[in-house]
């Protein structure tokens, strides 16, 4: 192991990290034994979230993917103690539990549908995993349909399983995606950029025409607009915006809205 002892995690935020780098976390004062030590600055720190591309190791965090290290401060949110993750780019999707993806039905095998989600294996989806589905009342799913669902089980040892309902039994937007529209594939980094809370691309596009958009974390996007031409325009913009700068994008949109 030629790697050095490891750097402090906070120092590396925003820099490129490579697999094998060790990131040291600040020593926690209350690790062995004493928990709540009342006094100045003794609020017990929440749990640190170690996101994709990082793994826990003896000294701190071990990087497993190359990319930029990102950090989110503690406070609110799901990770009360802050979060570290590696912002990497890839085209191939690896199923992750809880992710919402678009799948294409490839086969119906008895009570289970097989879906292609772009991973190494096909995901399975039971016919009962739709809202209001019973043994008598089966959902109307054909081979070739598009389904928006989330992963229930997704690990390297088992076949991924998908469902189209959430934990309370409601569909909340998941299920069969309707007729027409256009499905295309982009890289995973673009999807995350588009799903970020204040995405300019989406805001600018929404000013153009009325349309509907479904973004799957597996890199698939489905677009539907009133006419075929409008749909194709949106598709082209979304595909190209990954490599366009903000000005180029604004110019392109200005030309379109001028038409």
């Amino acid at each position, binding site marked *: 192991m030629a790697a050095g002892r490891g750097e402090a995690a906070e120092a590396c935020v925003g820099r490129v990290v490579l697999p094998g780098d060790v990131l040291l*976390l600040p020593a*926690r004062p209350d690790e062995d034994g004493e928990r709540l030590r009342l006094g100045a600055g003794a609020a017990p*720190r929440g*749990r*640190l*979230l*170690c*996101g*994709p591309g*990082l*793994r*826990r190791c003896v000294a701190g*965090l071990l990087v497993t993917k190359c990319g930029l290290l*990102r950090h*989110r401060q503690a406070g*609110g*949110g*799901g*990770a009360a*103690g802050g*979060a570290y*993750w590696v912002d990497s780019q890839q085209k191939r999707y690896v199923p*992750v*539990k*809880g*992710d*919402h993806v678009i799948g294409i039905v490839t086969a119906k095998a008895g009570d289970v549908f097989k879906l292609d989600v772009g991973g190494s294996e096909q995901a399975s989806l039971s016919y009962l995993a739709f809202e209001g589905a019973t043994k008598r009342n089966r959902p109307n799913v054909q081979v070739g349909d598009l389904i*928006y669902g989330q992963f229930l089980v997704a690990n390297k040892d088992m076949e991924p399983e998908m469902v189209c309902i959430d934990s309370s039994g409601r569909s*909340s*937007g998941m299920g069969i995606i309707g007729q027409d529209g256009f499905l295309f594939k982009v890289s995973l980094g673009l999807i*995350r950029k588009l*799903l*970020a*809370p204040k995405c300019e691309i*989406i805001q600018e*596009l*929404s000013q153009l*025409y*009325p*349309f*509907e*958009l*479904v*973004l*799957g*974390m597996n890199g698939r996007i489905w677009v*539907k*607009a*009133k006419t075929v031409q409008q749909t194709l325009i949106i598709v082209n913009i979304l595909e190209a915006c990954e490599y366009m700068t903000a000005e180029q994008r604004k110019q392109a949109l200005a030309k379109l809205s001028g038409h």
Partner: protein
Amino acid sequence: MAGEVKTKLSKNLLRMKFMQRGLDSQTKKQLEEEEKKIISEEHWYLDLPDLKEKESFIIEERSFMPCEDLLYGRMSFKGFNPEIEKLMIQMNSRCKEEEIEVDDKMEADVSDEEMARRYETLVGTIGKKFLRKRDQRVLQDEDEDGNSNTRPSKKAKKKFLKPQD
């Protein structure tokens, strides 16, 4: 009568599965631990103290959703699909507010006070419908009398009139 005397249940009976369904998980765990500790002479065991698992402060997560606070994947703009637009507002506000349940009180058509007033009268009127005939008659008398409680509520029961010769 049956509730007064509690039959004593044997330990074996209490240890059976169907008796333990009602217990909460903590007591179940305790019972299990106690069972494990009852070591008969035939069993060999290691005489070591229980090691407590170190509570780690780092959670590993393979998904990007909690890290970057991503929005919901289905979107609709300019009224193309109104249901999806409603869903967008609902799902995204849920994320932002950290799943604080917003009690959407449906706008009541009838105010609470009016409801209480109606209910007072309603229960009485509908309730009368289901009274038996005897009680209905009693009720009738009460209504006629008003609030006077001095008069005995029982009307003189109609006795058998002997036919006069």
